[in-house]
């Protein structure tokens, strides 16, 4: 394994029923970089992302072959402790789904579950992570209100904060800005650029311009296959595959 590789996917195949959704995926995702997964709708980006923290366990009738190594540990290996693996990764979904509890507990949830109950320590952590996502100033006086009362953009930042609160090493984000207004999107983008100093970020997006803006490394998928992957500069300026060129020119949109 490359020294700076955080996630390594080897010969990953995924079937749902008889449908072959992911086909022989081989990728290496660099540590402390922002990796973007690009590709047209339905090509398997979300599915690939969910494989990484085993949310695919929730699928009915699914069969997975291959391996996903995170720090040399195979996530897909049945003996792996799923909850520990998942704690290594924060997840940000397409639309924010705050947990059915107040703002404070949304952030404290992961901590409380892993047994941290010291009130003072929790308070400090909640404040810290809310500050990290620039939400503290907007909510410090209503921490005990239902999280569902926040705006969508605020909710998405809250979801990021609750993910960060469990001390992950990786952030998985599935089109995290697609439900947001331009300003909220920009906030998230900028946050990501900051966060990649400490975290390995894997982000799915539809938006080419967004990918150009923030990607360090790009993985391009098409119909369940990885067509091309590489450093962003190379990928955008000098794509090797015909499909990639066509995609970059907007052929699939």
């Amino acid at each position, binding site marked *: 394994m490359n020294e700076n590789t955080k996630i390594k996917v080897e010969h990953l195949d995924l079937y749902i029923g008889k449908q072959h959704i992911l086909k022989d995926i081989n990728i290496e995702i660099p540590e402390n970089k922002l990796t973007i997964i690009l590709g047209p709708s339905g090509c398997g980006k979300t599915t690939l992302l*969910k494989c990484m*923290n085993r*949310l695919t366990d*929730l699928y*009915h*009738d699914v069969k997975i072959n291959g391996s996903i190594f995170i720090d040399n540990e195979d996530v897909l290996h049945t003996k792996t402790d799923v*909850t*520990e693996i*998942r*704690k290594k*990764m*924060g*997840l940000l*979904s397409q*639309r924010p*789904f705050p*947990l*059915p*509890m107040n703002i404070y507990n949304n952030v404290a*949830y*992961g901590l409380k*579950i*892993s047994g941290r109950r010291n009130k003072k320590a929790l308070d400090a952590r909640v404040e810290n992570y809310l500050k990290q996502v620039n939400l503290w100033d907007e909510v410090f006086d209503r921490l005990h209100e*239902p*999280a*569902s009362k926040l705006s969508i953009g605020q909710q998405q930042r809250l*979801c990021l904060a*609750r*993910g960060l609160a*469990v001390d992950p090493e990786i952030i*998985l984000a599935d089109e995290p800005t697609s439900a947001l207004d331009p300003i909220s999107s920009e906030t998230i983008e900028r946050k990501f650029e900051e966060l990649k100093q400490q975290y390995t970020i894997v982000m799915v997006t539809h938006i080419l311009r967004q990918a150009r803006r923030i990607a360090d490394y790009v993985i391009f998928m098409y119909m369940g296959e990885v067509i091309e992957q590489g450093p962003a500069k190379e990928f955008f300026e000098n794509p090797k595959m015909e499909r990639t060129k066509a995609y970059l020119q907007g052929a699939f949109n």
Partner: protein
Amino acid sequence: MIVLFYNRKTKNRISTAWMYIAISFVVLLPFILGLGLYFKSSLLFSENSLGDLLFSKVWKPSIGKFGFLTFIMGSVWVTFIAMLISAPICIFAALSITQYSKKFYLKIIHPVIDILAGLPSVVYGVWGIIVVVPFISTVIAPLFGAQTMGYSILAGAIVLSVMIIPFILNILIEIFRTIPIELTEASLSLGATKWETIKYVLLKKALPGIIASLGFGLARAFGETMAVLMVVGNMVQIPKNVFDAGYPLPALIANNYGEMLSIPKYESALMFAALILFVVVMVFNALMRMLIVRYDKY
């Protein structure tokens, strides 16, 4: 063209008027019912205080004593125990079907529920007499050192719970199914186990729906007549334990309605029993709505 236009307008007006009539009818129906029952039972009020009617256990129609406490307690016991049995069963069944089972079970549960819900209550009553009553007298009661013929509060409650389970379960399954999967994913990805996710996230999210479904079941149980009447014993006494026979309100009405009509005060008393059922169900509905609003903030 003009004729057509006119026609459409008239049609529109007629259909609008008709909708208003239909709506007012539906909205007024409870009031009409309630008022009817109230007037029919007014004869009883003229001679007995409401407190006596509700809290006295002396039931001697021949000397004009109508205390409903026995019947109210009969209803409360049967309903309460039926809920105690069916609520946990329904919640765990709904969770296991929606969260833990293969899709196959979700597919077969709906026909099963439809069949159970569609059976006439007399069928449940017969099942109660043939299976539940003897089972209680020969197996369950001896286990607790009690002696009973089997016709008891417990028999009524068991039959009732079997009757309301399909209704509650049906709603609960729908509720758990409509909780977005992303919520589960969020909780799992924060390191929660599946059970923690259910306990802290799904149940909380579903709470208003759970309250509604249980309330719905409870209202049904409180009013269910036939099946309960067949197995509950129908003795005018306040049950001291679940193996005692009881006499719930609906059974009182159904058992006596035909023959007692000739005695005006008795008829009035039966109307009052119906009024109690009616008011309880109404109040209960209102309470439930308040609870739902209270917990529906997430």
